[in-house]
């Protein structure tokens, strides 16, 4: 299984802080497409992805147990 975490406006759009689904073997891009369809999200192009708390590319392949977080453009400071 994989934990998928959402923040800021994405959390509100999805309606959950996180969900659990099995996406091992899929790329980040494939996961984005899957979620975009499921939750009608249309801003995932500008959203960064973290795997296990490190930034990852769209090409990266998700492993069993990986924690995925979607990181909208940040606004701290």
């Amino acid at each position: 299984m994989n934990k998928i975490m959402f923040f800021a406006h994405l959390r509100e759009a999805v309606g959950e802080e996180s969900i659990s689904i099995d996406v091992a073997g899929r790329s980040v891009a494939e996961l984005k497409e899957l979620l975009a369809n499921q939750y009608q999200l249309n801003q995932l192009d500008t959203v960064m992805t973290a795997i296990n708390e490190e930034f990852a590319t769209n090409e990266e392949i998700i492993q069993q147990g990986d924690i995925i977080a979607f990181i909208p453009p940040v606004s701290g400071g």
Partner: protein
Amino acid sequence: MNFEISKEPIQIQDVIDKVVQREAGAITTFIGTVRELTAGKKTLFLIYEAYEPMAVKKLEQIGKEIEERWSGAKVAITHRIGKLEITDVAVVIAVSTPHRADAYEANRYAIERIKEIVPIWKKEHWEDGEEWIGNQLETVAYPTGKPEEKDLNE
């Protein structure tokens, strides 16, 4: 712990104390406060949210980048999350260096990097609405789905 996310008000002196060193002639701090007016619009309050463990890691990364780039620099950063009122302190960055020019430059570098790579978001609340800042400005787009290569190095 020189790099923290805090749910409580930040004690500025505590952050400064972390960078005091006998080799330092200068300490600069940056204190980000909640401003009432942005582009003529009146803010009532802000909510800050963070992906906490990753935010701490990224603050630590910024500290390492600074210590590599400015010899003898010592860095501490605390960012607050939760509800903040006008004039409340959102972030404190303290940098000590042997000489003052470095203390200003390295401090400035830290706040710019926070705004690039640390997973923290603010939601502005106005009289007539609310909005997550940064979400639809799209001034920063990551076509590859990730920030620059340098952002990935720890």
